[in-house]
């Protein structure tokens, strides 16, 4: 397996993430094997690969849930800052550095309202202390108003402003997804990690999701890193695609390049070459074909 070629294509000019030689093992299972990749500032990078390829493990390494045995991960929030290592930092610290994520199984605060969910994200980094809050000092009241204002703004951005006072668990599935994204955006990230955002959504919701992702990238200037199985979605939003298989990076490039990459096709279809009817990962309708 030619490793230098994908690695070369995985480099970018202005990296926001720099992952070098990361290996993650659990007992006898190697989840990530010597993965090296970079994510460019401002891009929408999609990570694809069969189930068990190590995609979520990579996310978890980036957000401090797992600590890889070898390798380094550095993050550079803005061009004017120096890269900082993410290894050994706690999850909430990593969030403060500018990395936000959503989860494969939506993890909202189910008994809080929609607005309260977003506010938790907004208030996490800087907020008034307990004393000011208890005494009802002017700065506390001001902060509360600000938080509500910015929360409504974010909800408007994702299209949930009219349900601000609904209990989160009462939302539809697609709305919950958008709420989770809104909450993540509330933390003011430089990069947003989306873990299978289209899972369980219908085609209409998928289209809206694609629009939302592009809006986040364009209007909010947030880089997006997403794990996805739905090829249509990937092809329509991603600026670059990285392919993992068995914990290894097997390809990197634009969506079109990946579609035609023989190593990728082999990983998905196993027998190499194209299937009988000429279908390959890039054109599989509806996503989730043979590798789901």
């Amino acid at each position, binding site marked *: 397996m030619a490793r230098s070629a994908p690695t070369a294509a995985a480099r970018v000019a202005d990296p926001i993430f720099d992952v070098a030689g990361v290996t993650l093992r659990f007992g006898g299972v190697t989840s990530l094997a010597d993965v090296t990749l970079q994510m460019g500032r401002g891009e929408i990078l999609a990570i694809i690969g069969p189930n068990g390829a190590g995609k979520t493990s990579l996310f*978890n390494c980036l*957000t401090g*849930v797992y600590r890889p045995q070898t390798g380094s991960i550095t993050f550079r929030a803005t061009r004017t800052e120096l890269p900082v290592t993410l290894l050994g930092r*706690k*999850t*909430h610290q990593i*969030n*403060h550095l500018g990395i*936000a*994520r959503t*989860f494969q*199984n*939506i*993890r*909202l*605060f*189910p*008994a*809080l309202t929609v607005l*309260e969910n977003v*506010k*938790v*994200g907004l*208030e*996490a*980094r800087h*907020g*008034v202390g*307990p004393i000011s*809050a*208890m*005494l*009802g000092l002017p700065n*506390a009241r001001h*902060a*509360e108003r600000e*938080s509500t204002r910015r929360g409504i703004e974010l909800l408007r951005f994702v299209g949930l402003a009219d349900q601000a006072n609904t*209990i*989160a*668990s009462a939302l539809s*599935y697609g709305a*919950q997804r958008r709420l989770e994204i809104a*909450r*993540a955006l*509330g*933390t003011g990230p430089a990069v947003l990690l989306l873990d299978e955002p289209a899972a369980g959504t219908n085609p209409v919701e998928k289209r809206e999701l694609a629009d939302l992702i592009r809006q986040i990238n364009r209007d909010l200037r947030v880089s997006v890193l997403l794990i996805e199985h739905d090829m249509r979605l990937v092809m329509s939003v991603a600026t670059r695609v990285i392919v993992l298989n068995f914990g290894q990076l097997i390809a990197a490039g634009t969506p079109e390049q990946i579609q035609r990459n023989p190593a990728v096709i082999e990983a998905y279809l196993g027998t190499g070459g194209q299937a009988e009817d000429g279908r390959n990962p890039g054109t599989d309708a509806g996503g989730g074909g043979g590798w789901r």
Partner: protein
Amino acid sequence: MTFAAGGGSVGRRDAWYHKPDVRRLGASLGVGLVLALVTGKDGRSGHFGSGIAAALGGVRVPSFLAVGLALWGVATGINRYGDEMRRALAPATAARKRVTGNATFRTTSLLVMLVVAIGIPPMLSSFWQGVLVEQVGIFMLLAVGLNVVVGWAGLLDLGYIAFYAIGAYTTAYFTGTLPVQPPIVLNPFLCFPLAVLACLLAGVLLGAPTLRLRGDYLAIVTLGFGEIVRIVANNSDGITNGSRGATNIPHFSIHLLGINYDWTLNSLPYWYLIMVVLAVVVLLFFRLEHSRIGRAWAAVREDEVAAQASGVATVKIKLLAFAIGASTSGLAGVIYASKIGFISPDNFLLILSISVLAYVVFGGMGSLFGVMVGAALLTWLPQFLRDYVPATDRNLYIGAILVLMMIFRPAGLLPARRRRTELSLHDIPEAETVAVPAPGSMGGSI
């Protein structure tokens, strides 16, 4: 954590004795018998069966079995016709909610309660005034403090009374009533901030290394800490005067800016003092609950992993809750020490921590109002029933309340809105939003 609901443990699954109605009958009759034992006479040491014989003798068995039967009838009725009953009562329930949710209603009830709290106590006997201060008032304050830890942050603290003890002993120390003398002897009022400081320190020292442990471990560690504090107080004759305790702790007094007032053994002025302290604390906590900190606590309670990913510093915020709860307990300790004038390690037994927990659970974990009502009710009731129920049975009922509340109404008597929602979500295993990571993938505690 829902397992496949298996059937019974012996015999065929569809045997008659496994039918839910029959099992409910067995359980209800069992409850009847237990009730007979619980309300029966005490047994005598060395005469096994004397208590049981007395409790079950004569007409008691059939009457309590009848009670059990009645319970079974009610339970089966609710089981069969519960939904219909609920539907029939729906308009009444809606009306009630409309009334109690109304802001005017709430303000009026608050005013009424204030009037009662200020106006009624002077009319009571000195015994009841004493009960108001030493039981109702103190434990309402303790319950409000524990509510922050258990109800808002979701941390089970079984050593809560340790901070109560620290507050009391701090008062004893700074008023010069311990074998070791302080650098300067102070008025008990000044012990308030000092006790708060001491408890903050103790809370942080205990909490910092332990709050990242999961729920049950934390509970046991706090229990251990509570016992350590008590045993150390009991054994350190030179510092705390050991099991003899501290005596002659002075009452509160103000001699400042022309105001001259001394608290005495009279309970009434202490009641007003506690009311003021309670009111201030409740106001502060109410604001806290609706601030970003309150939301962060709810977030950590509902999904700690998601809270961390959203930037909440979970350990710090738990520590904050722990410290605030500890300080409140310390405040209560100061008031107690000054009112009674005498403290000893036996005043700070584990059963007190458990009792405060019972008041919080009974009243409604997470609800400021609920826990105050719970504490007031459960401290007043034993005194009210003292001629009918022996004092030694009190712990029996505390234990039963804890178990029964968890089985039938975990959200408490007057639940907090969020808690009620959270607990009802737990009842639905298929709830999409309460997602669970694959076992072992995320190290967070549940």
